[in-house]
């Protein structure tokens, strides 16, 4: 089955997707470039007014003006080129809310927390939701169907509301888990068990919130696809062949997973957004929290940087999903 992956059509399919993602990245950068220039108001002034008490060198001022396009002598195209060249050098500007530290450094500090929490929670949620969806579809007409409206509630409830509930219930009232942060305030980051277990302890509640909030979507999605798939002739033939039930379910699920993976690509943006909000409620030191402070302190450079990093992450996740899809569906490896 894997032999097809290196064949022409598969490579072609993936290359097309990569091309599209590059295009999207360019679009994202361009949009980020234009927003401060299109929106009414003077972003640089806002930045300056919020950055009271900080020392702003002439260089920094010039850099800000270039980045946001106000009061600068360079033409639009020149600014755009400058923007890109900075970007490609890893220069995302200077974070005015964090003591003029480079944005890239600030993001680098927060990124591992987000990747760890959101990444793991999303994967767990997808796997769990998919398996439950298969179960609910297979056991149609049983009591499991009555759970479906409940899952719509969880799907509709905002992530941060569930986070509030989780904290109130599990952290405050029951005291099972810590209510905020990624590790105890008196802890020092180190690679020993106390630190790691503390991190895990703090991560459980936010992760649980993300999983509960997003699993509902996977469950319902997978259930719907499974039901449609179970109507296919090859599933009936599977039954006609007298195959054990588990085999027949596997045959159906193996096909149903494909649209589900496409759905994953679509939903990843939503899940990431929701996860960021959850981080904020938990004061988890990831990108979400960073985003909040950036907004409050009008640190536009940081805001832009975070947006670009998140977009990049989503694109990478999409690419991974595409690889999985091509691996699982032999039809994509055929000449169109």
């Amino acid at each position, binding site marked *: 089955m894997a032999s097809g992956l290196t064949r022409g059509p598969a490579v072609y399919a993936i290359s097309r997707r990569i091309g*599209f993602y590059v295009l*999207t990245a360019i*679009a*994202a950068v361009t949009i980020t470039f234009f*927003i*401060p220039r299109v*929106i*009414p*108001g003077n972003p640089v002034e806002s930045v300056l007014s919020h950055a009271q008490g900080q020392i702003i060198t002439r260089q920094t001022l010039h850099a800000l003006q270039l980045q946001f396009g106000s009061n600068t002598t360079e033409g639009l195209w020149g600014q755009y080129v400058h923007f890109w060249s900075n970007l490609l050098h890893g220069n995302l500007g200077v974070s005015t809310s964090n003591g003029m530290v480079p944005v890239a450094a600030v993001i680098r500090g927060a990124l591992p927390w987000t990747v760890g929490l959101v990444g793991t929670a999303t994967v767990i949620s997808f796997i769990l939701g998919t398996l439950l969806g298969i179960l609910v579809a*297979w*056991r*149609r*007409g*049983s009591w499991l*169907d009555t759970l*479906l*409206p409940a899952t*719509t*509630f969880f*799907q*509709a*409830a*905002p992530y*941060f*509301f569930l986070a*509030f*509930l989780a904290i*109130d219930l599990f952290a*405050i*009232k029951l005291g099972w888990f810590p*209510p*905020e942060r990624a590790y105890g305030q008196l802890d020092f980051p180190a690679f020993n068990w106390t630190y790691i277990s503390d991190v895990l302890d703090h991560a459980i509640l936010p992760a649980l919130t993300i999983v509960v909030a997003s699993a509902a979507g996977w469950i*319902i999605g997978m259930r*719907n696809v499974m*039901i*449609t798939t179970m*109507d296919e002739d090859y*599933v*009936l033939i599977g*039954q*006609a062949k007298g195959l054990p039930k588990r085999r027949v379910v596997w045959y159906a699920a193996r096909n149903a997973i494909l649209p589900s993976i496409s759905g994953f690509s*679509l939903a990843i*943006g939503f899940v990431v*957004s929701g996860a960021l*909000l959850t981080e*904020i*409620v938990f004061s988890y030191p990831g990108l979400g929290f960073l*985003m*909040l402070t*950036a*907004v409050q302190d*009008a640190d536009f450079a940081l*805001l*832009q940087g975070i*947006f670009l990093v*998140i*977009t990049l992450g*989503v*694109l990478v996740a*999409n690419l991974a999903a595409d690889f999985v899809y091509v691996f699982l569906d032999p039809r994509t490896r055929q000449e169109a």
Partner: protein
Amino acid sequence: MAIGNSTDLDRAQTADLLELYPNASARRRRRRLPRSPKVLIGLTGLLAFLVLAVIGPWIAPYDPSQTFSTTVSFPQPPSAAHWLGTTQQQQDVFSQLLAGGRSTILVAFVAGLIATVLSVVVGVAAGYFGGLADDLLSMLANLFLILPALPLLIVIFGFLPPSQGSDDVLIGLIIAITGWAFGARVLRAQTLSLRTRDYVDSARITGERGWRIIGFEILPNLIPILASSFLFTVLYGVGTYTALAFLGLVNPNHVSWGGMLFYAQVAGAEQSGYWWLFIPPGLAVALLGTCLALLNFSIDEFINPRLRAAGLSRRRARRAGVTGAERLPRRFVLGVTPVLRSVPPAGDHRGPAGENLSHGGTR
């Protein structure tokens, strides 16, 4: 062939029988929305919220922004005077809850409307015209689909000066720009499949103009999907607007459920157990969302008949008054046709000199 029965089980049959009689054109087939509990709950809930949006601020006992005390600095728990307690600024939470629905619902519906219009224009055009137009429009849709919506909106609203951030319609418009892409894709796919149907071809051959074909042959058949797409986008609008308000990105002086959650966060509500600050608004958003999702669910089942309860479970059979229902399996088992032995109504499917139905027996 008009088929208009109201029981669930007839719906399932009808859908299969439609396969046997493919001659009926889509226009003549009349299908009705099933009257299941999901639809009723969703619909009544939604209507209740819409009513609330209109009359909310008028029936609120107090002005939502009125502060009741300048000496107390902690949020007060629910009491007789303030049914849901007060905020940290000593404002009545209940009044805020009633008044806050308006902007949330308004923004969400504006977003839904604009996004649906955009998705129809892009999706149907891409599906109907095909070729280069399709390629470009599809790429545009995919672009907006992939760009993470909330971070983008945070950037936009972050740069937006606060004065602009209180215009609900503008907010709705901006949210719509990030939310039209999904509907466009679905509509495009559906238009593509409809375009190849016979009655569209025949309309084209008899010389109907493009836009007339779109208007009269294609659009009517897209209505269920349009409705689903609209509801989905409104749901998205509710969630997104609440999130933006929660982050303090839209004018905080404007009462909204998201804004209430923002202040709850500021007051450290979850850490200190001030549950009346975050449960009412959060629950309101969740319930509104659930009603929308339930309605959407029902429309999904309407569009795809297979999603409705298939076959005959014991419960349904009993409801339908079938004798011998006890011998049915409790739930639907794939791949094993149930055998139901019931005595048929007299004279129905037996000839006068016919074979005896009980011929053959059981074992």
